[in-house]
């Protein structure tokens, strides 16, 4: 659902897209911007060549471009397979390329498969909107890969790889890599920090009373758990933003929501019942197996009540994201019609009752 929500709301960009059908202007803009960005970083670079410049299908919140670049600089002839992510002019969830760039840089020395980040145009001076250039890794995205065409055993292996990947992210030594200063270290329980953040977003975007969400909010305030540890949290952990190469994960993408927090935030996100289709394999890889695997990999306790709190939180957050979409649509800044997320209420109530 949140994938749906990452979509441009900006008419200006759309019209640029429209023109692109006839002319090649966005392509030219990307090529010229990238060249300028490289020269910013490597002033001796010259004799540029860009081939296979192509915008990916999909990716509505930002433009994803694929291209191969060659140039000559002081150290000789260079060649890179690149991926360029350019923000659409105004996205629903304002991402922060600078933050993402810092995380990717920090991950380079860690055992987390992620693309090597090269250059950042943090204010869009070169590319028109904030942009990030990284290595193009092999593989494709498939948000339903765990319930796709592969054999059950292959899918189970992938499911285990996903949890292993989560554990590796949570094991990143963020202090050593200087991520505390970039991302901010939560003061107090991360659950309360996240809740305050998303409650503010809720207050900002709501257009009418939602007693259901206020009821859940009151429940969440009373039961916010302490964290077993403060770790690097991905913040949108799902198969849909991983690259699969062959039958294995080649890279984790989309780090703009990364922050420091409770490891159960990511685990609560992937075990929340409204995302079963993406994260679970019926009868083979369900909540119990996911949690057991995570415990085995990390040695953490994973308190059941705390995890359920994070499950409720993740659904509540999804509801707020949908209300953001409603509010942006009503304000004329978003080109899709969203509705009150009534379908998310019952799963929250059930989790809360189960935990009572």
């Amino acid at each position, binding site marked *: 659902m949140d994938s749906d929500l990452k979509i441009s709301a900006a008419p200006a960009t759309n019209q640029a897209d429209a023109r692109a059908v006839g002319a090649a202007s966005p392509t030219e803009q990307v090529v010229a911007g990238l060249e300028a960005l490289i020269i910013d970083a490597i002033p001796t670079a010259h004799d540029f060549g860009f081939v296979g410049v192509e915008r990916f299908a999909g990716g509505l919140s930002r433009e994803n471009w694929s291209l191969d670049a060659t140039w000559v600089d002081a150290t000789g002839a260079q060649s890179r397979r690149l991926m360029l992510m350019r923000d659409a002019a105004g996205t629903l969830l304002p991402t922060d390329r600078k933050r993402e760039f810092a995380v990717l840089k920090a991950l380079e020395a860690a055992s987390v498969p992620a693309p090597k980040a090269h250059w950042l145009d943090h204010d869009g001076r070169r590319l028109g909107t904030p942009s990030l250039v990284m290595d193009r890794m092999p593989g494709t995205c498939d948000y339903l890969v765990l319930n796709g065409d592969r054999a059950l055993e292959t899918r189970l292996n992938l499911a285990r790889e996903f949890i292993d990947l989560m554990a590796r992210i949570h094991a990143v030594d963020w202090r050593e890599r200087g991520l505390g200063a970039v991302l901010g270290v939560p003061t107090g329980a991360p659950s309360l920090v996240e809740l305050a953040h998303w409650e503010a977003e809720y207050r900002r975007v709501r257009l009418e009373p939602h007693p259901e969400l206020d*009821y859940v909010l009151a429940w969440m305030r009373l039961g916010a758990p302490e964290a077993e540890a403060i770790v690097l949290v991905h913040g949108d952990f799902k198969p849909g*933003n991983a690259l699969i190469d062959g039958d294995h994960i080649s890279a984790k993408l989309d780090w703009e929501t990364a922050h420091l927090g409770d490891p159960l935030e990511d685990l609560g996100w992937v075990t929340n019942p409204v995302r079963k289709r993406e994260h679970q394999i019926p009868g083979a890889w369900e909540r119990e197996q996911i949690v057991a695997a995570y415990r085995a990999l990390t040695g953490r306790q994973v308190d059941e009540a705390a995890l359920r709190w994070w499950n409720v939180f993740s659904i509540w957050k999804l509801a707020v994201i949908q209300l953001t979409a409603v509010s942006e649509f009503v304000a004329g800044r978003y080109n899709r019609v969203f509705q009150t997320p009534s*379908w998310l209420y019952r799963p929250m109530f059930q989790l809360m009752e189960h935990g009572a």
Partner: protein
Amino acid sequence: MRPTVEEQLLGTCTILEKVVSPCVADPYARTILEGLVANLRMLTGALPAVAGFLLDDNQATAGLLVQLQAAASPELAASIALALARPEPDAADRAALDQRNHELRELLSQALGGGALTPAMRAAALAHMTARAARAPMRYVSTTSPSAKAT
């Protein structure tokens, strides 16, 4: 009245799909158009139910508020009493039904977001909210294909 509201909306969807959409080459614009048409179809189906839903929900919410009054602060209890004393709006006036719904749900938000509820109150509130969610006439319609989602 013909064409009925629903005939007009469905006819609009059909023409958007058959006449306009084939002439939209830009993939972004076409994706947006598909989303609009899907929502318009949902809206067309939902429309006849909206006024009835609001009418029923206003009644149900008022009933729940009576029950929750005992746990409410004196100020909130007074606001509830005041709201419940007001006459119900004309059932043919959807905007008035909507406004009344907003007013009652604002009070319900306060009653549920703050107070120490008894188990009976919580059960009644949960039953009400669950039933309401199941009956809500408007639904988001996803038209994004899996491949387009993959970023």
